[in-house]
């Protein structure tokens, strides 16, 4: 709470300290029972934390759409899946003899991010022709199409329902295997920090200001002669590229990917995370992702516990379904905690109503334009 009110310099110092702590975590021996499955240096905990950080990166990219631009997209999972599947497919098929192995790997990641950007530009150029609910529906439909394509296993590339397994022949040895979870953890942290900085940069840029202004009042932006379409498309494409980056790292971390990440349900999870953390706040998205993933993991562990198995049906059935608890928690947050978890620390500050109203407008806009 105090960090929030502090001056920019201290804020930067605090952020740097936090990142440093995260960097050092694999070298420390911290045990927090009930939160982490083991000490912080163990692969299990590192794997979980890395996973949470990648989801946080993805949630940050979603924050660009929903929090900054007020675009309620139901198709963001498409670009994450494009990153995960894209890198898998590129690594398998792209091995120019003139490039050293390390460079092939880096180039593959860049190509994947580019795929995310271009795919988002294509999808966005169609979807953004409409606004509000129609936009939400078109993005949902595209994501559904993506999900169908992935499951159909075109050309044997995606692995269908089985999913895709990482082809490690071009992946540096340091990023392969359980013993190297530490390196994958650092990679995930680097991805999160990168995404955070890009999001920060976009928010502070002219495009960021314009798109935030269109969220509040599209008319005013039109009046000063800017067509919101192109600015929105730019933001949409950047968010797609960032999601693809997170997806690529996800493939490396999990050594594979399943079609689950392409489903609309996965996007809904993102929406839950962003709202849980606090809409409109960068660190809200990060906080939401960390809380959601850790909670999901712990609840899953709890579901399989003997304590739960011994309960009568009426308690056992709901408590053994992590998604039931998370969904209920989410409903409670929407009903009673409009600012999300981040809003808890801002209780005494001015509530965020105007922002929420801006987003409301976006949904209503098809009635007014």
């Amino acid at each position, binding site marked *: 709470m105090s960090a929030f009110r502090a001056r920019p310099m201290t804020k930067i110092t605090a952020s740097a300290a936090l990142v440093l702590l995260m960097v050092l975590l694999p070298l420390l021996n911290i045990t927090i029972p009930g939160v982490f499955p083991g000490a912080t240096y163990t692969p299990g905990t590192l794997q979980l934390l890395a996973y949470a950080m990648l989801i946080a990166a993805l949630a940050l990219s979603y924050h660009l759409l929903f929090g900054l631009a007020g675009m309620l997209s139901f198709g963001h999972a498409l670009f994450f899946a494009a990153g995960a599947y894209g890198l898998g497919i590129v690594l398998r098929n792209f091995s120019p003899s003139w490039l050293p192995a390390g460079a092939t790997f880096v180039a593959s990641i860049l190509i994947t991010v580019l795929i995310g950007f271009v795919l988002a530009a294509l999808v966005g150029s169609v979807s953004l022709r409409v606004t509000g609910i*129609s936009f939400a529906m078109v993005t949902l*439909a595209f994501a559904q199409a993506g999900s169908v394509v992935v499951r159909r296993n075109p050309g044997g590339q995606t692995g269908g329902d089985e999913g895709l397994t990482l082809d490690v022949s071009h992946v540096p040895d340091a990023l392969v295997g359980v013993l190297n979870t530490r390196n994958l953890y650092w990679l995930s942290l680097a991805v999160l920090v990168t995404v955070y900085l890009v999001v920060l940069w976009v928010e502070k840029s002219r495009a960021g200001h314009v798109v935030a202004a269109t969220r509040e009042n599209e008319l005013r932006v039109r009046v000063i002669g800017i067509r919101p379409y192109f600015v929105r498309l730019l933001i949409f494409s950047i968010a797609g590229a960032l999601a693809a980056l997170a997806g690529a790292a996800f493939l490396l971390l999990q050594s594979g990917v399943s079609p689950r990440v392409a489903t609309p349900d996965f996007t809904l999870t993102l929406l*839950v995370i962003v709202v849980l953390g606090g809409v409109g706040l960068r660190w809200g998205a990060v906080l939401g992702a960390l809380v959601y993933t850790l909670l999901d993991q712990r609840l899953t562990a709890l579901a399989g516990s003997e304590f739960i198995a011994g309960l009568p049906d009426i308690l056992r059935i709901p408590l053994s379904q992590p998604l*039931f608890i998370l969904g209920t928690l989410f409903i409670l947050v929407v*009903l009673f905690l409009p600012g999300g978890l981040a809003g808890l620390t801002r209780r005494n500050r001015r509530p965020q109503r105007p922002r929420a109203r801006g987003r409301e407008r976006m949904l209503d806009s098809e009635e007014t334009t």
Partner: protein
Amino acid sequence: MSTIVLLLITGLGLGALYFLVASGLSLIYGLMGVLNFAHGSFLTIGAFIGWEVARRLSDGSWWALVAAMLTGAVVGALVAAATEFFLIRRLYNRHIEQVLVTVGLALASVALFEGIWGTDPTYVTSPSWLGQTTEILGARIPNNRFMLILVAVLVLVAIVLFLKFTRYGLIVRAGVENRLMVTALGIDVRRAFTLVFAIGGAAAGLGGVLASIYYGYVSAHIGGSLLIFAFIVTVIGGLGSLAGAAIASVLVAVLQQFANFYLGGTGDLAVVLALAAVLLLRPRGLMGAKA
């Protein structure tokens, strides 16, 4: 020829399912501006509880089927009305939050269904006639398609009669056009909200029982998978238009069947392309009131 007849009638049957979900979605959105992600769950709970009742009565008799359909409709209506009353109403006019609550409800309820009925499909036994086929113009049509079409037509007629000839129907039609003006005439439009949710829930619950005949099983995800197509149907038909929902249901389902058969199983993709095309050429949908 016989293939075309088969695809057409099967498409109509699938369209009937889409309509049972989309009609409620469209009315709810038209009147209240709420995009209801929980609508699939109304369908699923209707199906599960409907079949629980049928199973206890007898396996595979027509009476059990009728009981299942009635139960499904009633359960769908009750759950939907409760959703409106306890969750949606608290967030009056906050459309984003309303969508979010229905998203949460959809996630939580599907998880709960999995907890209660398991993750594997539950197979259902319906009257044997429904499992047989009838030959029309050389095409062997599964009999359950006829029942789907019949029930959807009956539901359509019932909703139209309600809208045209009752006071609440009048309020709903007026509210779809201009909700604030309805309240400015001294009418408590919130009662119409609950009613519309209940009607949509009843159609969905009934649709759930029918969907499980169409697919041969019930599962926790049966509603969610239909919901996406129902959304597409609603947007193509024009948000808030019942006639649009009916026409688009048939168009989408028939297109899907034909693309699946003639274009190597690309039905789902064809539907998405159709949605993109409609939105680009006519953003308000086929029958939508205003863009």
